[in-house]
């Protein structure tokens, strides 16, 4: 089996596992393994966070290695900074419209295959990380998971970006690059529908 076929199988398996949870909710759930893994589980089961990570990581890989290296550290770091700021709040701060629109933006970047400089791209990714980290932090502050849960989220962001951006770097065939763009358009579509749900 070729490297690409192996990667594709792995991605498909990850996608199935990702879709598997019967009742995935946008709030922290108890994994039974402590706050660190609660944080990791939260990220993997929260599409509103994870779709943006998928879009940014795939786009980084579609640009070049430097984009991937920048975002690999910028996104988890900004997530931690935003998360700590959110932890300072005494009440939960949820902004589903803002969160959904941020997914629309990063999905559109992927669909149009934005050719920004690595620094500008990392800056945009950081804004996304700050926003979603802050939203995560504010919810964790009220559930008592604290900074350990935040570390679980940040590490999962790091691993996800490393995996997805390196996979995206391998996609050189024309049809695979089209598939990535189509994935971006799907992310935009989901973000728009989520915005509608939030405004309903």
């Amino acid at each position, binding site marked *: 089996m070729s490297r690409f076929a192996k990667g594709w199988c792995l991605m498909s398996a990850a996608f199935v596992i990702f879709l598997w949870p019967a009742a995935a909710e946008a709030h922290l759930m108890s994994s039974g393994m402590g706050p660190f893994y609660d944080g990791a589980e939260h990220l993997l089961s929260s599409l509103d966070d994870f779709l943006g990570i998928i879009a940014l990581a795939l786009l980084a890989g579609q640009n070049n290695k430097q984009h991937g290296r920048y975002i690999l550290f910028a996104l988890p770091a900004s997530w931690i900074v935003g998360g700590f700021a959110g932890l300072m709040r005494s009440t939960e701060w949820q902004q589903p419209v803002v969160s959904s629109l941020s997914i629309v933006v990063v999905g559109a970047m992927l669909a149009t295959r934005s050719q920004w400089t690595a620094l500008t791209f990392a800056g945009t990714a950081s804004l996304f990380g700050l926003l979603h980290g802050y939203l995560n932090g504010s919810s964790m502050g009220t559930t008592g998971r604290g900074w350990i849960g935040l570390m679980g989220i940040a590490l999962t962001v790091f691993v996800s970006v490393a995996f997805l951006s390196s996979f995206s770097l391998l996609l050189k065939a024309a049809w695979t690059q089209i598939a990535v763009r189509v994935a971006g358009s799907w992310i935009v579509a*989901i973000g728009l529908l989520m915005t509608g749900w939030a405004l*309903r």
Partner: protein
Amino acid sequence: MKNPTVQSGAILAVCASSLLLLMTIWPARVEAHVTGLMGGGFASGFLHPLSGLDHVLAMVAVGMWGAQLGSPAIWVLPVAFPMVMALGGMLGLIGVRLPGPEIGIAISAVVLGTAVLKEAKPRIELAAALVGFFAIFHGYAHGTELPPGASGMYFSLGFTIATGSLHAIGILIGLIHRWPAGKAAMRAAGAIVAAGGCYFLWSAWQ
């Protein structure tokens, strides 16, 4: 086509897409409405676009037309459609009134089927605008029909993947366009889509 491996792969893709299409349009009652059995979540969202034959015909026709037009339409149309459709869905969700969505959907099947039948080759901007215009109606109809108790995120995910899969089926069917007999079959398929659209248009007027 000389290469037997490529030829057998293309035949396999066409057979697989035909089977997939048959499975998707199989349900005994094809209506573009949510039934009581459809709960929230991914499965509900995934099944929703497949539950209306008018939607299925138009979305498959988008993929077929894209395949007929070739690059870049083969990917521009399937990229444009879900985004604009979701915009229509959002308009439906926030309560914006759009007159006659069912008529718009039926007309979309007529127009897209006719485009495939006539092998119309407009400029890519015009083709994308046309597909985008009709996508608004499709999204609006779905947006207003989303079940209130469903998990919004997973419903949206299933809804979008199902739509994209229908386009992919259309593109796979469009692979037969490279053979002379395939061109004729594609035109016949376009005629069937247009005829189906006429039937739904007539039903919508009743």
